[in-house]
């Protein structure tokens, strides 16, 4: 892991398109700002890891997989009538 020391308002470039800025430091908490293109997802690591664990649990990793019987069809996926509203902040 690359470790760099930064003071408040200093920043780090990750690749060509992502900038990480130290916005504030308060005791043991660091507030970071991320400037990245809209298409890049930015998330707290622990949330990402929680989703990983959940997906693996859903797929039944580690659990024995008994073959099923019965007809299997392509699922009919249809659009929702109710529209999810866009997120307020990005």
């Amino acid at each position: 892991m690359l470790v760099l020391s930064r003071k408040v308002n200093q920043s780090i470039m990750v690749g060509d398109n992502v900038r990480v800025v130290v916005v504030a430091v308060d005791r043991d908490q660091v507030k970071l700002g991320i400037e990245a293109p809209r298409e890049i997802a930015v998330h707290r690591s622990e949330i990402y890891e929680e989703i990983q664990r959940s997906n693996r649990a859903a797929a039944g990793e580690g659990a024995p997989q008994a073959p099923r019987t019965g007809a299997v069809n392509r699922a009919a996926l249809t659009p929702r009538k109710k529209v999810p509203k866009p997120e307020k902040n990005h």
Partner: protein
Amino acid sequence: MEVTMEFAQSATIETTRFGTVQYAETDIIEFPWGLPGFSGLQRFLALSLAEQPNFVWLQSVDDPRIALPAADPWQIFGDYDPRLPVYATDTLQLRDPSDFTLLCVVVVTKDAEELTMNLLAPIVVNLKTNRARQVMLENSSYSVRTPIPRKRLEAQGAAQPA
């Protein structure tokens, strides 16, 4: 409404859960960004068992051992109000409500007593392009492990994806 596999231009995979599954290339749902926990897997089929029409199994075409059960969140949680982040609507090119649907991954707890649904990270599927992405609702209060109330499951007539 059930749709059976097309026989023309079809391929097959030997899945661990469902045995031999026949499919057409047009059935494939592409996950260009993979899935957290399965980042190398990008091609999936959406399958339903005849006796469990309310559950969608996302069966990996790349790894026949991997299939994730999911369901329409609004079947169980009528007031689910996910705010999709810009990176999701942008990268999946969602322009119109009729373009897409959401599926939330379901986990059966170890003792098979309970089901939980991941409302924090819905899978968004663009139905026009057949591309999908699992999206994290970072700023919401939704939980990865939202218990599915047994009563609502039964009311929907949905059997557990045991």
